[in-house]
């Protein structure tokens, strides 16, 4: 994100450099405290942008009277970015994470490894970071994280950035006992989803500056307890919103969003069911195809002249079976998980809409109460009500910005997903075609061979 001003701002709130140890330093270093001292008083770290007039030194928390206005400034800047971001995305249709000059934080999740201890067995993934941001002390990091850690990060982000849409994680619990948590396929699928999650966060102009992300990416050892304590203050403010306020009228644009999300979710569900059904039919087709090929082989055994042609057919059928297996595997490993993840993403979005509604409801409720009181005893509208109003405006602005981003991402993601599906099908047919063409070549060779033998 090419936003210049916010980059060095308090939102990232880095620890003083002296406190951060080099990840590659001696093994017996003390556990790092991952969360910098970011929250002071009512400072909302999600704003990311301090008041224009405040000093913007790295690591200095900035007291602002109205973080909302700073946030809206930030968002205005952010909105300016959007067209660029879109253009960027267009240019890199195949790899939205391939950078151009504006991106300065790259993250990757790979290299799954199994860890066995007396208490439990679990998988860790390598999280690699490359960055030029000054919020980070080093240009590169490589740490190992497990699912729990990602979950921790997500919760932290949700708590600390309640007005923003946090990308979803793959399902936490795998039940049924049918799914093997340690199978290659499961781990692979999960890893891709975690990678996606992290990339989306790193891509977000506000979330990517969140100190928890920083800690997640750079700390040798996540000390969760400490982080938990520090953030309860913020958590509280979010929880307060969940009071019993009823929303009067949701603005039209948010209604439209809600409706869109409902229909979209429905369509996703339908597509999921169709894809599953196709998989099922393909599996059954594969079973019959295998038996079919086997009959050709066994027939070949009782023939002499026809032996090679029949065996050839059996071979081509077998190649087609292999190609079909690949196609089905692709569908179940790449297509379906991404589809399902979008359902989760849609749910997250709906959640944010709900929170926004609640925040608006709270504001309206308090305002009404305050107006009533003022009518009675002329007390001025209290600060909390103003703060509520700010919060609502902030929420609305953040949400709109996130919505645009979400829509744009969705378009890219689905373009990629569906194009990928088309590609896989094309490859499947290409492989089958090659198998049959080679058979014809074989058979026609034999024919010309026979003809020359006849004439001789």
């Amino acid at each position, binding site marked *: 994100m090419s936003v210049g001003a916010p980059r060095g701002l308090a939102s990232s709130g880095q620890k003083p450099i002296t406190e951060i140890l080099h990840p590659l330093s001696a093994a017996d270093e003390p556990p790092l405290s991952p969360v910098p001292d970011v929250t002071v008083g009512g400072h909302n770290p999600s704003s990311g942008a301090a008041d224009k007039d405040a000093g913007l030194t790295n690591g200095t928390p900035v007291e602002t009277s109205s973080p909302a206005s700073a946030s809206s400034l930030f968002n205005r800047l952010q909105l300016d970015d959007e067209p660029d971001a879109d253009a960027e995305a267009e240019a890199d249709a195949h790899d939205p994470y391939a950078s151009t000059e504006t991106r300065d934080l790259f993250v990757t999740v790979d290299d799954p490894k199994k860890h066995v201890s007396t208490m439990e067995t679990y998988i860790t993934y390598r999280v690699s970071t490359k960055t030029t941001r000054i919020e980070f002390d080093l240009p590169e990091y490589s740490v190992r994280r497990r699912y729990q850690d990602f979950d921790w990060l997500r919760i932290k982000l949700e708590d600390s950035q309640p007005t923003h849409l946090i990308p979803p994680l793959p399902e936490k619990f795998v039940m049924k006992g049918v799914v093997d948590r340690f199978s290659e396929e499961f781990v692979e699928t999960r890893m891709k989803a975690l990678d996606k999650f992290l990339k989306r966060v790193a891509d977000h102009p506000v979330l990517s500056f969140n100190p928890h992300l920083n800690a997640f990416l750079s700390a040798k050892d996540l000390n969760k307890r400490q982080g938990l304590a520090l953030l309860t203050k913020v958590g509280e403010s979010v929880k307060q919103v969940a009071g019993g306020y009823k929303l009067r009228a949701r603005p039209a644009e948010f209604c439209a969003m809600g409706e869109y999300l409902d229909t979209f979710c429905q369509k996703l569900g339908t597509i999921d069911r169709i894809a599953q059904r196709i998989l099922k039919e393909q599996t059954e087709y594969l079973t019959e195809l295998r038996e079919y090929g086997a009959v050709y082989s066994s027939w070949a055994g009782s023939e002499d002249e026809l032996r090679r042609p029949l065996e050839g057919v059996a071979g081509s059928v077998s190649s087609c079976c292999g190609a079909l297996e690949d196609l089905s595997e692709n569908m179940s490993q790449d297509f379906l998980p991404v589809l399902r993840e979008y359902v989760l993403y849609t749910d997250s979005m709906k959640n944010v809409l709900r929170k926004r509604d609640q925040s608006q409801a709270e504001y309206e409720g308090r305002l009404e109460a305050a107006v009533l009181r003022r009518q009675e005893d002329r007390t001025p509208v209290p600060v909390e009500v103003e703060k509520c109003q700010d919060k609502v405006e902030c929420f609305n602005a953040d949400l709109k910005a996130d919505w645009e981003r979400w829509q744009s991402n969705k378009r890219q993601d689905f373009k990629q997903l569906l194009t990928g599906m088309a590609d896989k099908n094309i490859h499947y*047919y290409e492989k089958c075609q090659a198998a049959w063409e080679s058979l014809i070549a074989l058979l026609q060779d034999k024919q010309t061979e026979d003809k020359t033998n006849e004439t001789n």
Partner: protein
Amino acid sequence: MSGQVGTANPKLHEKKCVSSFSLLTCSVMFQMVEEGSTLLRRMEISVAEAEKRSGKNSVNMQETFTVYLIETRPMDAIAEGRNPAPDSLWRRYSEFELLRNYLLVTYPFIVVPPLPEKRAEFVWHKLSADNMDPDFVERRRVGLENFLLRVASHPILSNDKILYHFLTEVGGSLSFQSRTADSRLRALSATFRVRNPDKRFVDMKHYSDELQSHTSQLLRARARVADRLYGVYKVHGNYGRVFSEWSAIEKEMGDGLQSAGHHMDAYAASIDDILEEEEHYADQLKEYLFYAEALRAVCRKHELTQFELEMATQDLVSKKQQREELATGIVRTFSFKGMTNKLFGQEAPEQREARLKLLEELIAEGEESVKEKTAECEEHVEGGWVDMQRFKEQKDKDLREALINYAIMQISMCKKGIQVWSNAKECFLKM
């Protein structure tokens, strides 16, 4: 295409284009015409049409059946450029059956070409098992034509008078043959043990069993595969619907989604033609499934003739032995006569003379019989072996062509698939 060299009649030609490739390719047909096939050289034969008729059957009940139009034209007239109208007559399936049964009985050493199936078998769920179904009737028409062409191009069968009458004259000349045909056919299915069958025929019979088993297995497996493939394609049609619904709530993505949906619909629809074409392949396999039976019949006939020869030979041997005993008075083997003689005393010389004379007559008859049967057996073996070789060559060529055509069909299906998905991909890229 069906054995004619230069079809002048456009209507006939059109019919051929639609159907004949399926059973006999051009090269095979030309071969048939050239290799000393007499009737087909002289005559252009086709089963041009099929029609429904109603009438009373043998038990005076109303029934509906299909008749087929057999058209013939003299080859020389066509070669000369004249375009005479064909002679034609209508015949129903049961008449074809009578003809074939006649051929089976009259030429037991020939592997007689089979008729298309009487009832639709190996159907997968979309195919109709109804005999009146137009697709079934059409494929049967093609099968009947194929039968006639094969028979008319056979070096021996094509010269048969009854065949000629079948093709050119209306009439019941076939009916009286049916009774003899039935009884001889029944004989072919009896079981008996043969001591010295020709090993080649034993092997061939074994092969015919294998051929029958493999082709029927293949047909069944293919039908199941067709069923499943149908399902895969049709489910994709659902994408068309959901993409269309989804496109309604999208702005920029809408057009791409909508168009892609149409391609998914096209994809789902394409399977119908694909599988219909594959039925032709199935028909080719079926022909050889039934051919296997015909081959088996030739081997069985050999067993029968050999058995009869062995029985006749054995009978002759025992009669000669009896004569010897009677003449010399020495009993070599146990016999009833010998025992009664011992018990009740020998018979009078006049009686003995009479019996001896009878025996001599029987022996003479027996020797004639053995000679006849030996000749019959040898003829059958000779003729049968030649025709079985002819059949083997034909089978190898036909099935190889069929497999190549099958591969071509598969390639065409793959190309269609690539086309549709490429189109869809373009739409997705425009999203």
